[in-house]
């Protein structure tokens, strides 16, 4: 057991809140969330913090640990030098409710606005649509998303510029990609991505990919392919000409 120092944000807004220092006995194998629980148990019973599974699957315990978005339950204390003070602050991109709990409701509003799945008409004699595993593997990668919103938190468009109303953010580009690239879907979401999703605001600096706890290649496999699809429709004069000539696409 070793005594470690933590600085944890306390308060109900970033303007008036403060970093409060705690010293906690920490043992081998402990994660940041364990330390927060020990602080709750021994020193600050009113410390607000969301958590649920402690297994990196519920996506509840996201916070900034030493300035980097992390799931507290998956961040080992042994990743930091013993003499380093560990600073835990609420997710920067969202309003603080209290201490480490933030209001992420904007994400659920954005989710509701996404165009829904539009099933492809049945093309087999038994009245069903069939697809092969090899062609559905691509959108399956995006199904790993646990909706922790760390990608939304680190994205500078939301984190620094607070463009929640104009930009749906990486998590919802991933969600759009699930449907848009699905073999059984025929929806065209390019207009939505450009006009309402604000995909042009993304400058592909890959912070979202760096922080994803599920290692989804958000930028390379979701956002850039969607940007290319938008380019097909709006920024490719050759395709525009082809569409005019053939009436397709």
């Amino acid at each position, binding site marked *: 057991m070793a005594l470690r120092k933590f*600085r944890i*944000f306390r308060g109900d807004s*970033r*303007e008036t*809140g*403060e*970093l*409060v*220092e*705690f010293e906690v006995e920490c043992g081998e194998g402990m994660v940041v969330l364990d330390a927060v629980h020990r602080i709750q148990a021994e020193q600050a019973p009113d410390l607000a913090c969301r958590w649920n599974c402690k297994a990196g699957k519920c996506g509840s315990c996201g916070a*900034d640990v*030493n*300035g*980097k*978005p992390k799931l507290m339950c998956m961040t080992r204390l042994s990743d930091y030098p013993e003499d*380093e003070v560990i*600073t835990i*602050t609420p997710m*920067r991109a969202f309003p603080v409710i209290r201490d480490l709990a933030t209001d992420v409701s904007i994400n659920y509003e954005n989710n509701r606005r996404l165009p829904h799945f539009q099933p*492809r008409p049945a*093309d087999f004699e038994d009245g069903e649509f069939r*697809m*092969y595993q*090899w*062609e559905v593997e691509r959108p399956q990668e995006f199904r790993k998303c646990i909706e922790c919103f760390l990608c939304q938190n*680190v994205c*500078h*468009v939301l*984190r*620094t*510029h607070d*463009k929640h109303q104009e930009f749906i953010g990486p998590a919802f580009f991933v969600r759009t990609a699930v449907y*848009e*690239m*699905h*073999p*059984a*879907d025929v929806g065209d979401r390019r207009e939505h991505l450009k006009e309402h999703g*604000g995909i*042009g*605001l*993304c*400058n*592909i*600096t*890959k*912070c979202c990919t*760096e922080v994803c706890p599920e290692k989804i290649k958000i*930028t*390379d496999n979701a956002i*850039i*392919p969607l*940007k*290319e*699809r938008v*380019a*097909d429709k*709006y*920024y*490719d004069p050759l395709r525009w000409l082809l569409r005019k000539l053939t009436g397709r696409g």
Partner: protein
Amino acid sequence: MATSHCCKDIIERSFGATLRRDNWWVEPLTMVVVLLGFVIYSVWRAFEHANYWGGPYLSPFYSPHFSVDLPRWCSPAFLIIWVPAGFRFTCYYFRKAYYRSFASQPIACGVGKPWKSYSGESKLLLFQNLHRFFLYLAIAFIVVHIYDLVKATRWPVSAAAAYTSPHHAAGPTEFGIGIGTIVILIDVILLTGYVSGCHAFRHLVGGCIDAPSRVFLGRLRHRIWRGVNVFNEHHNMWGWISLAWVGFTDFYIRMVASGTISLEFDRLF
């Protein structure tokens, strides 16, 4: 229990404000140094308008070479260098690199920016969507570089016979390999690897198809798409190595062209 205040870092409202403790500035600084170094070297070489071919070798900065009369101030490099420059400038990976390191948009994840407003690639930078057109030209350039490679294996039969212009030797030629041939071969391999992993290429070959089993040649295109993914996963690595090697290729050919490295020394067999 002690209390401390550092709202500047919590809010990240000023440039460089962050709670990060790691050396986040190393990566953008390295990129500035490397990219700026490459740009300065290439612009200098383009303006130099000399020592761009020697023996059977033609510098990639001057290839394809057009035999046209140009004003004295205009180097033939300017006729072609905009193609690889445009391809790399609009490349999705290099965009990330220079947005971070040169434009601080953002300089690193979770670090304060110097800018108050932001429009991303939605206004002034809409031209980045032209990347696919630079891709078409880049593929044509690779074909030209392969031609240069073939020409780099043709040596004059008589040692006394000299080259009169890029790729044109006086008298008959024979097959031969020099160090420069191998340098150009590696350059072609690296450039092909870099272009093969291009995101726009991946989209065009099969990424734009959702249900390959319902499309003509869909299975084949899906396989090609998977192959392109192999290169795409390491697109940054291919990008950096090919950038460094194309610079080295030009440097080596300059050494041959200026006589610092003789053709006798260069030729292996």
